[in-house]
């Protein structure tokens, strides 16, 4: 575990460090643990879970783009019950903060998911995925306007026990991200995660998200703007971060923590390496 001086306070939680694994880029956690103990990290965010199992979309689900990846996984996940029965007990024993990402079709379903997840042992926080690149196609609640995001946050909060922080994951859209962040924080979110994949298309035209270093300057703009406009906001940065130097740029912009996503798909040791480099470990 990290020395106390490297800990980070986020949404009322003490994290072992400022580096988290981003949703959808850490498998079930076990695969990642082959390359380094998760306890070295500030936290692990699960792939987005839905109430019912989802088989995911057709292949190709990922496509290499210059300095980026296009993704269209289609929210493949075993459903919340299966996750809580087969994956969460292991995650809870890894000595790191486990943040469960959720996404739902309706506000009622968000509340139902929240009730099931929040009560499970080992869940440190919930992250609502308000930035699915193909919400309409996948039939999940479509967050087109900031007030839609606020509605989701309010629905989740009504079902969330006190003391369980709620992170709202926003789209890295420089035009709307400040307004979106203000709306979800006003609605009661503990912190915002800025951001997710950018809206994009596969070469064959299917809806997809673009992630990776190609999107890093856009993400940095979003994080910078949110931190300037809302200095009290607790911000977690995500978007193409793959080194300690890049992480420092986001922390200097005002983020409390960073999430490592696509870089893990290229090098599964990235999160552990960035965490170690930030600690100044050899």
């Amino acid at each position: 575990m990290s020395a106390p001086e490297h800990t980070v306070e986020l949404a009322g939680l003490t994290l072992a460090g400022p580096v988290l694994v981003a949703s959808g880029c850490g498998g079930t956690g076990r695969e990642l643990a082959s390359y380094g103990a998760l306890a070295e990290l500030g936290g692990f965010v699960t792939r987005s879970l839905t109430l019912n199992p989802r088989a995911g979309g057709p292949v190709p689900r990922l496509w290499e783009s210059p300095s980026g990846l296009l993704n269209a996984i289609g929210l493949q996940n075993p459903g919340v019950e299966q996750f809580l029965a087969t994956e969460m007990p292991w995650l809870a024993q890894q000595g790191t903060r486990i943040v469960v990402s959720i996404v739902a079709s309706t506000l009622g379903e968000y509340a139902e998911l929240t009730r099931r997840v929040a009560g499970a042992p080992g869940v440190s926080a919930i992250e609502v995925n308000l930035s699915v690149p193909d919400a309409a196609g996948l039939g999940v609640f479509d967050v087109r306007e900031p007030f839609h995001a606020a509605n989701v946050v309010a629905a989740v909060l009504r079902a969330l026990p006190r003391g369980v922080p709620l992170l709202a994951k926003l789209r890295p859209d420089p035009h709307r991200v400040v307004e979106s962040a203000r709306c979800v924080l006003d609605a009661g979110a503990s912190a915002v995660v800025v951001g997710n994949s950018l809206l994009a298309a596969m070469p064959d035209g299917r809806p997809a998200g673009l992630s990776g270093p190609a999107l890093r300057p856009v993400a940095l703009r979003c994080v910078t703007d949110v931190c300037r406009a809302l200095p009290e906001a607790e911000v977690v940065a995500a978007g193409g971060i793959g080194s300690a130097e890049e992480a420092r740029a986001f922390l200097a912009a005002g983020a409390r923590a960073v999430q490592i996503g696509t870089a893990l798909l290229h090098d599964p040791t990235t999160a552990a390496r960035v965490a170690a480099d930030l600690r100044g470990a050899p």
Partner: protein
Amino acid sequence: MSRPARGPLHVSGELLASKRVGAYRHLTLVAPGIPERFRPGTFVALSVGGSPTGQGGGEHLARRCFWIHRVKPVGAFGATIDLVVEPVGTGTRWLDALAPGATLELTGPLGRPFALPQEPVSCLLVGEGYATAALLPLAERLRERQCPVTLLVAADDEAHLLSAIETRRAARAVTVVTADGSVGRRGGVADVLDEVLTQSAAAVVYAAGPARTLHAVAEAAERHGAWSQTALEQPLTCATGLCHGCAVPVVGEDGAARTARACVDGPVFRGDRVRWVDLADA
């Protein structure tokens, strides 16, 4: 940090030798720790394009995956692995041109290996194109277990036929088929499969190659009452189980349809577990 003894490693390797053989490039790599963990049917993922270490990937984020063709446990440079590359795309052409002495980031050995029979039963190994590379170390392992090995090797033409001389040493009988008839019999795997299965009286069929060939092998094995172990080649992005991009439609032990990951649940699947028609449609 404790790691499972058989878990994969992410290491910096060195290209020791590079040799053109027919249509393929044979690479010999020093890859610390990987040879010791190798089992037939596992593979390695390489970073291509000279992405600088610690920068989360350069322009090319997706990994390029190759069967481990041979392991030399002892040598002047320590243990090495051999890979067979067919230069057809951006990454493979980059590897084709790479000069010995170059440093390569690689992860492995990855995936579930071939399951070996407990008894010394007759085995048929079917390989097409460069994928035959996965079968040669398997043939040696089976021979150590006193399993009579028959080989069926297929390719488009002589240039795409992998190391026919070595295959002869590993097997009791070798059948070669080429699409253009330049070596062996003219035709494809499906044309001779039943005949070779009957002659070899194989209890287990191991296959590596394109999905349509594996499908034909799985069906033929069923007809002959043999088990089949098929090594699937899906396009992989992370190759480590993190991204859920390499979806393979399978049937679980309980008979329920599921989506597996080619990289960690495979690449070797029991032929009767793969939903081949759904795989072709995907």
